[in-house]
């Protein structure tokens, strides 16, 4: 076995098989060049090991923390639901009363849309209130202002 055939880095890293290690050790016993190579590699690994792990400066936010909560627009997805309701209403009316004229159908659509809007208006307002409250709190915290 020649010097070039021996993986001294793999040896120092503990990646060689038992038989490969035995062969490498037998070679090193008779080769000063390889002993120096191994010694330098080990010194390098020792030097690298002096670098200690640092503590995390502030803890990573947990799933239960605010940062993991969905944003307001992620929570508010009634548009699709409202669209489905309207589409379903049109289909139902279309099949149930096939002879309705255009004006009647339009008025039914308008009524369904109004119902949907009314239904989700309260939800939207509550979310907007929450956003305003959050913004107000952020502003107070950022400016150090305390409500009188």
């Amino acid at each position, binding site marked *: 076995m020649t010097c070039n055939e021996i993986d001294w880095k793999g040896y120092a890293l503990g990646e060689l098989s038992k038989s490969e290690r035995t062969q490498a050790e037998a070679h090193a016993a008779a080769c000063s060049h390889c002993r120096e190579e191994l010694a330098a590699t080990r010194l390098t690994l020792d030097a690298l090991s002096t670098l200690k792990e640092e503590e995390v400066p502030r803890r*990573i936010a947990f799933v239960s923390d605010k940062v*993991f909560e969905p944003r307001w627009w992620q929570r508010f997805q009634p548009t699709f639901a409202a669209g489905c309701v309207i589409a379903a209403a049109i289909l139902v009316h279309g099949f149930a009363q096939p002879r309705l004229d255009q004006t009647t159908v339009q008025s039914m659509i308008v009524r369904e849309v109004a119902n949907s809007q009314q239904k989700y208006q309260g939800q939207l307002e509550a979310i907007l209130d929450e956003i305003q409250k959050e913004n107000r709190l952020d502003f107070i915290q950022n400016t150090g202002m305390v409500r009188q």
Partner: protein
Amino acid sequence: MIFREVEDRDLIAKARRGDVEAYNLLVSRWEKRVFNYLLRLVANREDALDVSQDVFLKAYQNLPKLDDPAKFSGWLFRIAHNEAFSLLRRRKPEIDLAGEPRAEIERGLLPIELSLAVESALGRLNEDQRETVLLKIYQGFKFEEMAEILGCPVSTVKSRLYTALDLLKTTLAPAVIRGEL
């Protein structure tokens, strides 16, 4: 390590069933390792923290996609690798991680100085080389695991790591000898 894997598997199973506290515990167990890996890779504390946060959020969102809970550590570091390189690609023109050689290396070193020399020497490696050192030396992954994390063949992993160790050796080994450490 085996106990840790067993407990991780248990926590992962609970987190998958919606147990938030189990995931919180998982974060506590891995945040230091992930943060330190990212810190050495992106070389900026705030960036490392931000990316760590993103990593754990993505991991939570993708937990149902983890095929084998026993491979959680490699999977988590794969996410960390992707997030870190996404950041590095974005800021590439502004920051030169190579920096200037430090004067400390040229004389006998105290332990704290040696740590600085190591940081400096790591900083002079390119990102691919540095990452293999971080995964192998500091995180203790096997070559096969590293190949999965980095998405490249084992031969590439070895080539990058060995080149990195050769470069580090020329800087650090003489410094250690001079410092009689």
